[in-house]
């Protein structure tokens, strides 16, 4: 059994037909909508090579609704002519007839009727001829009978102007036998059912083919945030490299730990109101490790540990000022101080990834808060070459292999080096991180042994994430103005994998 009676009939007719048949003609013969035949054709096509169907488009003239009425009842002017009796009719009365207005002027220009304006009770209409030929009706009847070609081009276009005829394009199929033609096609099953499995009927059933070019239905699921997916990968990299995570769960820090402990002088521009968020409440740190504070104070103001110092008046009040930490190095300083107090010294590798805060001017790539990634290694006899070696391994894990190093200045590292990598897309070297050996003026007051060096480097989490996910405006990534669709659609974060092809407009 095929898909419905129409398909059945179609197949039987086709078997008998010589060559093929036209879908529109079949519809007319069967007295069904053309659409029903088209449906049958399509369902048979889906079964494979049963039939072949060639789409043809033909133009045809059809009557409009008004055209149909005229073909049936006669043209408006004919109707006006017929309603005028030999003794004439008042014009006002004629105008009230349904065909009055249109028919009157046409009948007048055909010279079938005339108006006598001198009649006693107003203008009166009289027949001019005894009979007339209603050409309009006759032509429309021809078209209705499928003989539109018998009309002259001019006649058709006049009728079309009067909105009695319209030209329609008909899409029909020329159907012929396919290579696997058969009149006995059975209906295809849409899906495998439990019953089919238990009865084994699936063995005898044909199944409808799937449309593999269609999209599947996405699963209902939650999604992780892209920036934090990247954070997870960075944590993973550090853990793979044997680095221990430092506690960083203290956004509030004293100026002491954020700046002074790092040998950053009290007049340093970073300590300006314009760059740092200071606190009104709690405005000052309640406790500071005073022994250590004194060593820091001495180093700043007078020097020591082989240093000239900065030679200025160091103020405790300035060190007490609370702030939102401007870098995670404040947490590293605390961790190194704890390490220094543990005797004997044991080498460490530390890392952290957390938020930092800057009272900066905001733009498309800068927010008041961002995430900093930091790595620290403390051991006897570490060198600049070691720092570069660790950086090479670290960046290789990020898929960045072309590195070079530029001398730089940081208040708390010396030597310092900026890390550049060659960007294939931009065809230039771009800065990817900052690094150095912590200054002895920072380490020795903490109590770390003199021959211990500490190498450290840092980078932001946002920048590699924006590059990775092709995001230009940081607000679309971080904060409440995030584009959730972007979160839903973002792929896995595999930092060392080749980047995918650039997203097309369509996919975006």
């Amino acid at each position, binding site marked *: 059994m095929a898909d419905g009676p129409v398909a059945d009939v179609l197949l039987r007719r086709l078997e008998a037909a010589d060559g093929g048949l036209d879908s529109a003609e079949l519809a007319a013969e069967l007295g069904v909508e053309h659409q029903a035949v088209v449906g049958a054709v399509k369902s048979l096509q889906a079964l494979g090579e049963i039939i072949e169907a060639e789409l043809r488009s033909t133009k045809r003239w059809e009557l409009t609704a008004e055209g149909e009425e005229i073909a049936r009842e006669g043209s408006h002017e004919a109707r006006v002519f017929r309603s005028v009796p030999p003794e004439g009719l008042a014009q006002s009365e004629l105008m009230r007839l349904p065909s009055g207005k249109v028919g009157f002027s046409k009948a007048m220009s055909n010279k079938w009727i005339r108006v006598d304006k001198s009649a006693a009770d107003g203008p009166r209409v009289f027949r001019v001829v005894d009979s007339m030929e209603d050409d309009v009706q006759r032509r429309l009847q021809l078209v209705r009978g499928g003989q539109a070609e018998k009309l002259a081009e001019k006649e058709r276009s006049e009728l079309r102007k009067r909105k009695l005829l319209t030209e329609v394009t008909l899409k029909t199929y020329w159907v012929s036998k396919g290579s696997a033609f058969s009149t006995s096609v059975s209906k295809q099953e849409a899906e495998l059912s439990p019953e089919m499995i238990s009865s084994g009927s699936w063995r005898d059933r044909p199944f409808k083919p799937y449309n593999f070019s269609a999209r599947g239905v996405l699963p209902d699921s*939650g999604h992780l945030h892209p920036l934090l997916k990247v954070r997870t990968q960075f944590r993973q990299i550090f853990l793979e490299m044997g680095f221990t995570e430092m506690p960083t769960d203290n956004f509030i820090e004293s100026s002491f730990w954020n700046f002074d402990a790092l040998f950053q002088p009290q007049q340093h521009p970073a300590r300006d109101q314009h760059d740092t968020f200071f606190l009104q409440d709690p405005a000052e740190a309640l406790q500071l490790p005073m022994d250590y504070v004194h060593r820091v104070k001495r180093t700043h103001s007078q020097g020591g540990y082989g240093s000239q110092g900065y030679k200025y008046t160091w103020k405790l009040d300035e060190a007490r000022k609370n702030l939102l930490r401007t870098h995670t190095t404040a947490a590293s300083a605390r961790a190194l101080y704890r390490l220094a107090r543990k005797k004997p010294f044991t080498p460490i590798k530390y890392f952290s990834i957390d938020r930092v805060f800057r009272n900066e001017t905001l733009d498309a790539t800068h927010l008041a808060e961002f995430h900093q990634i930091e790595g620290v290694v403390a051991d006897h006899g570490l060198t600049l070459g070691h720092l*570069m070696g660790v950086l090479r391994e670290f960046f290789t894990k990020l898929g960045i292999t072309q590195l070079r190093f530029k001398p730089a200045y940081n208040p708390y590292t010396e030597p310092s080096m900026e890390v550049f990598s060659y960007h294939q897309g931009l065809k230039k070297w771009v800065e990817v991180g900052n690094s150095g050996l912590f200054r002895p003026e920072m380490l020795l007051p903490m109590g770390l042994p003199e021959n211990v060096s500490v190498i450290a480097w840092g980078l932001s989490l946002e920048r590699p994430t924006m590059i990775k996910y092709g995001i230009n405006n940081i607000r679309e990534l971080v904060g409440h103005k995030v584009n959730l669709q972007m979160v839903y659609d973002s792929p896995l974060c595999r930092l060392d994998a080749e980047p995918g092809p650039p997203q097309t407009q369509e996919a975006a």
Partner: protein
Amino acid sequence: MPTVSVKRDLLFKALGRTYTDEEFDELCFEFGLELDEITSEKEIISKEQGDKKAEGASDVVLYKIDVPANRYDLLCLEGLVRGLQVFKERIKAPLYKRVMPNGEIQKLIITEETAKIRPYAVAAVLRNIKFTKDRYDSFIELQEKLHQNICRKRALVAIGAHDLDSLSGPFTFTAKRPSDIKFKPLSKTKEYTACELMNIYKTDNHLKHYLHIIENKPLYPVIYDSNGVVLSMPPIINGNHSKITLNTRNVFIECTGTDFTKAKIVLDIIVTMFSEYCENQFTVEAAEVVFPNGKSYTFPELAYRKEMVRADLINKKVGIRETPENLAKLLTRMCLKSEVIGDGNQIEIEIPPTRADIIHACDIVEDAAIAYGYNNIQMTLPKTYTIANQFPLNKLTELLRHDMAAAGFTEALTFALCSQEDIADKLGVDISATKAVHISNPKTAEFQVARTTLLPGLLKTIAANRKMPLPLKLFEISDIVVKDSSRDVGARNYRHLCAVYYNKNPGFEIIHGLLDRIMQLLDVPPGEKKGGYVIKASEGPAFFPGRCAEVFARGQSIGKLGVLHPDVITKFELTMPCSSLEINIEPFL
């Protein structure tokens, strides 16, 4: 990082050769500079003010070069050229000399009135200098760069340069009531009192930034010559009388400030840079400064300091194996004249007055490494053996966030800073009840406080994504901050987990189910038994009455869940019912 802009052709002429842009960029990189931009005055004006304004401006090529913030000796063309020429061994670093004048020494006497406002001053004379337009411009520009950087926008140090021949010493640095100071300032045609000047400069785009340094002080600093001519009213403006011109031959330089060390450095930098154009190159005429206590000092200091560093220390810190002689050569290329002495492993390094940044052996080590070439250093892996550990709180967070997503919730990442309104008014709470940490200098309301709850961030995230299909299910696991006097800084973070469900129905059962799932994941059984969790009817201003419960786990309250109050929903510009859960996860460590 300060940016110095120099004319390319002038630079190449001084360097005695030309470079392609790429070659020069490479040289900068190696030396620790950055060729930031190649432009011209015309291009700059057209970028800032449009093509029309730029018509007729100079199209001489300018190099904008980023200089490390501690290298004051590279802040002008003269210094850059000297540094690069020595680096490339084309010249030897000059020896800067202070000389006594043939006649009487110029004196600057500081009176005690300056003590409270600007207690320090130093001075020097550049004798028989020859300016050209370019040299003059560079001289002015260097003062400006120093003012912006080491001088901390003139707060620490302010520089004044004067035509000595128009003045007559000795000079007096004193402080007077603003109404008692009257003079004709630079580029004005009549005299004004200090009070009038402060008013005039309020609308001066350049000078208005410095007024605050003295504005509210009873006395303003001022320097006079022996005839009562005003040299300057530091740190605001010089007098017009002693203005230097292209024809000036003898320059009197004074630096006043609140930081003596920096004042001395600034003076040293200016005179070392521009003594190049004196008849006796690199010599500077001394000036005497008499302090209120009667002690007198001679400036500029132009001190050369000797440091001793062992060669193996440099090798060990950098990770190279160079002979002491080679290391000495490398350092000499960095303007640090060095020689091997003693046992053949000691290097004696002479720190010139231009290198105030060298304060420790580590600074010397860095210069050796730069001259060696960072990119020539052999990369090695340290042998440091360590076992990695995760921070337990972050480990728990990582595990939980993956399972929150598996439970169908999408992760948000919201700001830790927000407005008072977000954490108080909008949630129906008074700000005083929040224990919030307050920021003293927020530029906008968005940065008034640190958040005490994650909920506002999630609600704002929904508000920004109202076009997304419902339901919206969001979560965040992150830190909030509250005051806590038991901590050294008086505040602490708590790690919170917050989730919201936003749909046409409140979906309390979904948020409740999420809590049950979280407890299942944390291996906390339901029930009041020790170690279990329950929720108990509660209330809170953020919740719809009767639709709020408090979560108790392991014997303590850890947070709340419920259907949000319509007022809260409305205040966050939302329109649908919403339920939320927020708990502290630290008890589950």
